[in-house]
């Protein structure tokens, strides 16, 4: 069963990515976490995301395009990346989410991936 772990990071964690004093620890933790997922054979895919200030949000209300700078939601914790994993059940998915470095500082949200929609007959 596939699940997505959404990696929510605090401002401070996002800043750690480029902070000369903290970036080794930051990247080391994610490199190790990704390696553990791969070595356990549960990793399907994923990506880290550039920080929210690089985001642009598009809406097309009533056919009119509107583009805004910034992320869709302005919250304390921001989406910093995601992992797609394949594990037997939700319990196992939560176990992996608890090991995600962001779980200790921000959050790691777990959602079951939907199965592909039925093909039209």
């Amino acid at each position, binding site marked *: 069963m596939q699940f997505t772990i959404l990696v929510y990071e605090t401002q401070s964690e996002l800043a750690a990515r480029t902070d000369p004093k903290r970036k*080794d*620890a930051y990247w*080391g*933790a994610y*490199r*190790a*976490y*990704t*390696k*553990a*997922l791969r*070595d*356990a*054979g549960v990793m399907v895919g994923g990506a880290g995301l550039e920080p929210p200030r690089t985001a642009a949000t598009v809406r097309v209300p009533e056919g009119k395009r509107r583009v805004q700078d910034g992320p869709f939601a302005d919250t304390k914790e921001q989406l910093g990346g995601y992992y797609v994993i394949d594990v037997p059940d*939700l*319990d196992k998915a*939560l*176990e992996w989410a*608890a*090991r995600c*470095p962001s*779980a*200790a*500082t921000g959050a790691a949200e777990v959602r079951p991936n939907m199965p592909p929609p039925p093909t039209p007959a």
Partner: protein
Amino acid sequence: MSEAAAAAELAARASYGRLVAHLAARWRDVARAEDALGDALVAALETWPRAGVPDKPEAWLLTAARRRLVDGARHAHVAVAAEADLALMLREQTDDVGQTASSDERLALLFVCAHPDIDEAARTPLMLQTVLGLDAARIASAFLVAPATMGQRLVRVKAKIREAGIRFEVPEHREMAARLPPVLDAIYAAYGSGWEDVAGADPRRRGLAEEAIWLGRLVTRLLPDEPEALGLLALMLHCEARRPARRDDGGAYVPLSEQDVARWSRSLIDEAESVLATAARFAAPGRFQLEAAIQSAHAQRARTGATDWEAIALLYKGLLRCAPTVGARVAAAAARAEARGAEAGLRTLDGMPPDAVRTYQPYWALRAQLLTTLGRANHARDAFDRAIGLTEEAAVREFLMTRSADIR
């Protein structure tokens, strides 16, 4: 919180398990007993601020809960159930209100929670909820399960108790030997999930270790002649004694071998030693006594300044004979490495099945440490990465990353 609300909560915390045990033992239905007690607590919160807190809050709650159960039975349509309930209603109305669950009833509830018909994974959560009154969300956090899932599991398991007609009684002495281990396992699992919250940083898990020790004391008080129950209590007390030493003042993780023994609790160690000595008089060693003996050997460092690794390795050999768990095998490898050198410890690790250790963090942490000692830098870094990636706690992650960076 108002005074009345505080009094209700205090009464609930202090007597929840006893009241549920008492009601469930008579009504043979954990779910209904809990519902009735829940209603009684709600009624208390409504009534007490107006009418004042009663002299005996526990008796008040019991009376209110019984009334709910009796009312519920009057409305029940199932004839068979109603017949039994009718007899109960008579008894409930004549019972002395002040008299709540005897110790035997609480022990019976523990045995119900660990009944062989109940799914192993549900036993500890059920015990925490019915005997200690913890809520499903808190239990879910401790066992890393989605709260909704935990809620459903608990509801299902209580329905099963009712449908399977699992009896509320302490087993006969002959049967006890078979039925006690799952009770002890469930208590130990509760302690384990509290233990991992080293720093006490997670308010949802704080106190779970203390609750488990409380249950351990309860079992030894009610069954004083069971050496394994004593062994479990001694084991938990030894672990608890070292809690203050597991973090330094800055909150950084400190491994056992580097802990400052001055921070160990002498009184808890003394108590653990005396409980273990009582267990030893029965001359019937088992898994928990051996684990407690291993912790006891570690505790000697506080007196002698040294650790007898040969003795510890020997105790692990005994432990592996009766409980060959992955955790025990990794710990045995660590003891072997200390006693006979890193190469010997690594050989033990190499002998473990890859599937069993793929996601087992302690295996990779020990492997990394032994490879470092042996000067195999690249393999050590690889193993450290695995261990770091499998770690939940930030402090432990930091500790491992520092060790990995220190490899020359």
